[in-house]
């Protein structure tokens, strides 16, 4: 795979609908607009419960992290959130060291993240 691949899965939890966005490849200045478009469309369509599954993501740049924090700020007042799962050790450390884990909620597994929305 070259660049970045993004797809969306929908989970109906009964009480809520959660959209899981799978991202693999890398998110840099060349590819991050793809994620921006996907997330903006979801939020505009009223989907405020979001999980970003980063299994298979090699790299994430600061603009993409900024984008995620921007999305969090938009959906939280609506009772929603954006939660990150399946981060590689590498990306987990980067996010923590930069202090972004203070804002972005990280989970080990999709299940946990889904449950957290109930």
């Amino acid at each position, binding site marked *: 795979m070259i*660049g970045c691949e993004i797809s969306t899965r929908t989970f109906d939890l009964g009480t809520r609908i959660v959209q899981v966005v799978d991202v693999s490849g*890398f998110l*840099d*200045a*060349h590819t991050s607009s793809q994620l921006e478009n996907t997330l903006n469309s979801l939020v505009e369509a009223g989907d405020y419960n979001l999980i970003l599954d980063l299994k298979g993501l090699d*790299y994430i*740049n*600061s*603009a993409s*992290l*900024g*984008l995620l*924090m*921007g999305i969090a*700020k938009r959906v939280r007042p609506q009772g929603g959130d954006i939660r990150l799962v399946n981060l590689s050790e*590498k990306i987990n*450390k*980067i996010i923590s*060291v*930069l*202090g972004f884990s*203070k*804002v972005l909620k990280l989970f080990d597994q999709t299940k946990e993240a889904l449950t957290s929305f109930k």
Partner: protein
Amino acid sequence: MVEGKIFLKTPGETVYLALIRKVIAEIAKRVGFPEEEVARIEMAVDEACTNVIEHSYRTEDEMGTGYEWRREDEVDRPVELRVKINREKISISLTDRGRGFDPSQVEPDLEKYLASVSMGSLGIYVIKTFMDEVRYSHEPAAGNVLRMVKYFKT
């Protein structure tokens, strides 16, 4: 690879960032940085190159019209990376011939950033957080040079 100089030049386009990261990560790994530090050096260089492509090489005109490249100018917008290795450190110089920018003008403050509504200015925060030294200079002949240094032991 104890001592040596490597030079890499690509067009100033975001499609080359992946290659630049590969090269930097490979060098950092081979000179002996642990994986964690390799990832940080890789990210700092990616952010610096992104800024050159998205800010230094973007004309006022382009900024007004939705950030479109003037393709015919592409050849005049190279991203030049010079990597120097010696026993104590890796020095990475990024040269561009665009508008230029001194990052010491910006004092990134994550708390303020997180509190604010605006996005942006995270790149310089990353570069300053992950590298040991960051220095900017402008020389009419060479262009804008951003020199980033990382020591083997910190």
